[in-house]
């Protein structure tokens, strides 16, 4: 095939990066869910739609910037990500208040209710932005690739997503394990009654937690506009993968989510390289199921004395 050693090396590097980039995508979409599903036990089937909220935020702000302040185009994206967080956070807050808080004791019912919610949200997107996909104009610096040597192309958007994932993951870790809120969340998760008794406002904590999870989903959705589509049903492309990542990792463990995102991403990107895409998908899913069979509580289940 006429491949030189350096070509081969480049492919290895790029393939390695592909795995890492898929890892960060999976992790970013899993993080919000790890908080909502892992910490609160709410099966949020509308997670993908909260991601779409973030994606449409980017679209709106890119259109606004393009129309009113074209000179700011290089910078709007960073602001837009923050706005995406805020909007998805607000939507999550609202959803928690209207819906989720009535269902904490019925986890499987949250699944059905949020399924309804996701249908409704999709229709809202469709009515507001039209049924067709949209494409936000991204700043120039996010496009294309970085080529340190000839034949080696590292996607800039991939690096951006990776950086953002690192940032968000770090943030979540800090918040969950170093902040008052994190303490309250963890206390509420492990014993709601006791948390209440020692003066934690569990109702506020729940709402905050749910909203933060949704906000992170919004950030993920915003970031994915650089690598994927933005349309009313875009969120549904991610939802099953997101659940698999969180479940596979062991629902309550943030570290597990990280590890499982890494494992799934590597399996998938390597099998994809050697097999056809469809077979790769099947194999990856089978591997996940098998491992879940061996470790029913996920990779990083808490070993507890019963």
């Amino acid at each position: 095939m006429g491949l030189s050693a350096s070509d081969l090396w480049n492919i290895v590097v790029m393939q390695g990066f592909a795995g890492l980039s898929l890892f960060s995508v999976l992790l970013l979409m899993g993080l919000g869910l790890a908080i909502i599903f892992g910490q609160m036990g709410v099966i949020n089937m509308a997670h993908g739609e909260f991601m779409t909220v973030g994606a449409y935020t980017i679209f709106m702000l890119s259109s606004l910037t393009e129309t009113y302040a074209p000179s700011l185009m290089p910078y709007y994206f960073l602001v837009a990500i923050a706005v995406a967080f805020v909007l998805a956070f607000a939507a999550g807050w609202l959803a928690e208040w209207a819906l989720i808080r009535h269902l904490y004791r019925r986890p499987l019912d949250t699944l059905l209710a949020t399924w309804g919610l996701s249908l409704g949200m999709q229709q809202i997107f469709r009515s507001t932005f039209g049924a067709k996909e949209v494409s936000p104009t991204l700043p120039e610096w996010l496009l294309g690739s970085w080529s340190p040597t000839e034949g080696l192309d590292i996607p800039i958007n991939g690096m951006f997503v990776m950086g953002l994932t690192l940032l968000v993951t770090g943030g979540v870790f800090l918040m969950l394990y170093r902040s008052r809120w994190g303490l309250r969340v963890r206390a509420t998760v492990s014993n709601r009654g006791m948390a209440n008794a020692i003066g934690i406002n569990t109702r506020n904590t729940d709402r905050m937690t749910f909203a933060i999870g949704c906000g992170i989903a919004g950030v993920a959705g915003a970031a994915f506009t650089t690598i994927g589509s933005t349309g009313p049903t875009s969120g549904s492309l991610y939802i099953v993968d997101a659940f698999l990542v969180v479940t596979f990792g062991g629902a309550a463990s943030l570290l597990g989510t990280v590890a499982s995102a890494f494992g799934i991403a590597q399996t998938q990107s390597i099998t994809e390289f050697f097999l056809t895409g469809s077979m790769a998908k099947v194999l990856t899913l089978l591997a996940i199921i098998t491992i879940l069979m061996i470790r029913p509580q996920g990779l990083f289940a808490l070993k507890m004395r019963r």
Partner: protein
Amino acid sequence: MSNSDYVLAIEDLTVSFDGFKAIDTLNLYVDKGELRVIIGPNGAGKTTLLDLICGKTRASAGSIKFKNAEMTKLAEHEIVRSGIGRKFQTPSIYENLTVFKNLEVSFPRGRGVFGALKFRCTDDVKERIAEVAGEIGLEEQLSMEAGLLSHGQKQWLEIGMLLMQDPELLMLDEPIAGMSVRERELTAELLDRICRNRSMIVIEHDMDFVKKIAHKVTVMHQGKILAEGPMERVQSDPKVIDVYLGH
């Protein structure tokens, strides 16, 4: 030495959770017809020991022999079928079934899928249920939903469910928790009666109650056996006093 005289022979039993040894090379022997009470401070590993015997937790090392058969490799239901019954700390009954149904479900027939499909509540089953209900003092409540029973009655019902299976070894985890004085007395009598043709292991904190029922007492501490013997001797053991009074 042969262990065949013992109903239950536990040797070098060890289990660790992430390096923490909840049970540490423990040896314990229970005689036929014996009522053994295990006491010890919180976290001594009492409940874990019962979990190990009935298969809820898997041992890291050591053996548990019941009537000379190794139990550590068996599945939970196989352990139960070989004759070990276990009552949980909080009453574990089917709250939205009637007392009658609770007992009926515990009858040791039709335990397979198709057996359960074919199972009929024949006269011998009814007879047995009536008998056990009499034993635990719930004849009047047979048609009541179990969730409506008082806490003490729930404890009795669970014991009754175990009696339905007529186990040779019965393990009770804090059977009188939450009971009134009167109920405690009745329970003591109940245990005394049902102990006649089987061995029992009881975990209990209430020393008066222990005194009343125990044939022999084992004191556990930090996953090990601290002392063993008749109540009076154990009570006066300085090690035991040490542990209970604490430092």
